[in-house]
């Protein structure tokens, strides 16, 4: 009778540990998927920003769309659970500046060459941010 009771306690404890480990693995998986999704959005932003800055014609609509894309990505990086990565603010500021400080308004818009400093700055800011997200993700959510 007593040994039956002990067996049940062991079974329940075992189930509880397995359940907890499964939950924790699932949460880590969700977080990793979310960070992969943000990296993909950053690449979409890079594509849209380079396309905008290298275009012959200025488009007010695309200019505003791009700044909203930046806004959404930054908000996501600062929300739970992505805020657990503690992305340094300097990287986020550089992302916004690279895309929206120069050549984003009609008054100073000039079609950019694919290798111009502005385009390289966008590529660098986005590459640095993606590599940082990936490094931190590996360190925290492996």
């Amino acid at each position, binding site marked *: 009778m007593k040994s039956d009771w002990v067996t049940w306690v062991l079974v329940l404890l075992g189930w509880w540990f397995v359940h907890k480990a499964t939950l924790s693995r699932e949460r880590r998986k969700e977080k990793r998927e979310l960070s992969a999704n943000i990296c993909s959005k950053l690449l979409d932003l890079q594509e849209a920003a380079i396309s905008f800055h290298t275009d012959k014609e200025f488009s007010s609509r695309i*200019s505003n769309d791009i*700044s909203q894309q930046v806004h959404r990505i930054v908000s996501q990086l*600062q929300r739970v659970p992505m805020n657990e990565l503690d992305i340094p603010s300097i990287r986020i500021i550089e992302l*916004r500046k690279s895309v929206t400080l120069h050549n*984003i308004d009609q008054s100073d818009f000039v079609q950019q060459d694919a290798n111009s400093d502005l385009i390289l700055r966008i590529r660098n800011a986005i590459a640095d941010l993606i590599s940082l997200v990936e490094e931190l993700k590996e360190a925290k959510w492996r």
Partner: protein
Amino acid sequence: MKINLGKEFARYPAGRYQVDGPNSGERFRHEFLEPALKNDSNNIEIVLSDAIGLKSSFLEEAFGGLVRAGHNGAALLERLKFVSKDPTLPEEIREYIRKQTITCIQ
């Protein structure tokens, strides 16, 4: 004094100069920041949280432009207080004020 950028000026501020559109940084500076600095000697609280998609060009012109217009950078850093869900926005604005202060001294 309190200025809510997203509610009192524009939910989607955009553009550096007035020629770039009605919701530009230049207009925000002329119509909101400069009068507030002139008429109120206390700190000015600027709420950024309700504005969406703030561009760096808007921020630079609105706040860096204050220093170019003759306002003292150190006093601006002291008097302007920001409310923002995104802590990088006030940091970026202070960077523009500091940078313009150095440029104006040189």
